């Protein structure tokens, strides 16, 4: 009896370890997560319009009053350089890694300008960029993020349905492989 109790205690301890392992591994193996669902929109390294309404929306809980575009990227070969004309009204951008962690975000006011010119680089890539400064990146916002792959989500406010075509056009001109 005493021995069985010992095994039960061991089972509970092992259960605790399984609990921790499951919680930590869920983001890696989740099939419905945002990073995985965005692959269904088309190839990586290109911005795709993300529907915010309806049953086919790849990301749950998006604001139906905003227009969205997302680009899956990898930093394995080179830093991400993103350019987007954006709109005169509220817009924001968020960088997620492939586990869905929100690593960096900014909006039109914090960017201080109307268009978006953003570089995402790993610490090593940033050292290389500093050694060989590129004139094309002079005006870019450079962010150092310890990540290998992920996606960037642009959102732009559509105050009125009549403004939607212009907003969608600005988002469709977003480029996540700029020079």
């Amino acid at each position: 009896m005493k021995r069985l109790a010992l095994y039960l205690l061991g089972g509970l301890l092992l259960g605790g370890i399984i609990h921790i392992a499951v919680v930590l591994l869920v983001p890696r193996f989740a099939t419905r997560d945002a990073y995985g669902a965005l692959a269904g929109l088309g190839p990586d390294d290109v911005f795709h319009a993300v529907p915010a309404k309806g049953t086919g929306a790849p990301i749950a809980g998006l604001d139906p009053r905003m227009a969205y575009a997302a680009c899956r990227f990898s930093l394995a070969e080179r830093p991400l350089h993103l350019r987007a004309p954006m709109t005169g009204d509220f817009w924001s951008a968020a960088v997620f890694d492939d586990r869905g962690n929100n690593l960096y975000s900014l909006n039109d006011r914090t960017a201080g300008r109307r268009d978006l010119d953003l570089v995402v680089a790993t610490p090593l890539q940033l050292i290389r960029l500093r050694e060989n400064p590129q004139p094309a990146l002079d005006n870019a916002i450079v962010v150092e993020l310890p990540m290998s792959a992920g996606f960037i989500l642009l959102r732009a406010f559509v105050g009125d349905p009549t403004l939607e075509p212009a907003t969608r056009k600005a988002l469709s001109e977003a480029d996540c492989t700029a020079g």
Partner: protein
Amino acid sequence: MRLLAHLLVAIVVALATGLGTAWWMLSAGPPFGAVHRGVWVTWPEAGRADADPYFRAVEARRGVAPLGSGEGLTFLATRDDGGAALDAACTYRVEGTMPPARLWTLTASDTDGRSFDNPAGRFGFHSREILRREDGSFAIALSRSVQPGNWLPAGRGPILLTLRLYDTPLTESGVEDATLPAVVRVACS
């Protein structure tokens, strides 16, 4: 033989407690870090890189991409001020003022976040189109039937209200002092 039986018991207990508690803690919503303001709840750590593992797991299972701390803050409500679950069979009044934000939107959806289809094509209100009173406060009528003033069409079944504050100082200063609108039940059919 006895050893084998004991080992089997230990393994079954381990799997049952481990998987069971993990599933239980992840299915109800993020278990830690929620801040309640009236009927509204928010997770201020949502948009930060150092969100806790439970939060990350829940977000990954739901397939959501939360607002970053540089973008804004999201509040959710599924109950009225009386504590009853929001349901499309009732009419509600969402009334009061909003915390400071450059822009906010308030939308109604089902509990999975899918917008209600409606002929008016109206899924919510934003801060620039809403009709306000002279003191700057507002009242939104959440109902299936047409209402005067700010009418937000409800669909069918349980309702989730989502308030998104874009570019708000609350992401820096914290939400403890924020005053959010009340959700009052008017009538049920």
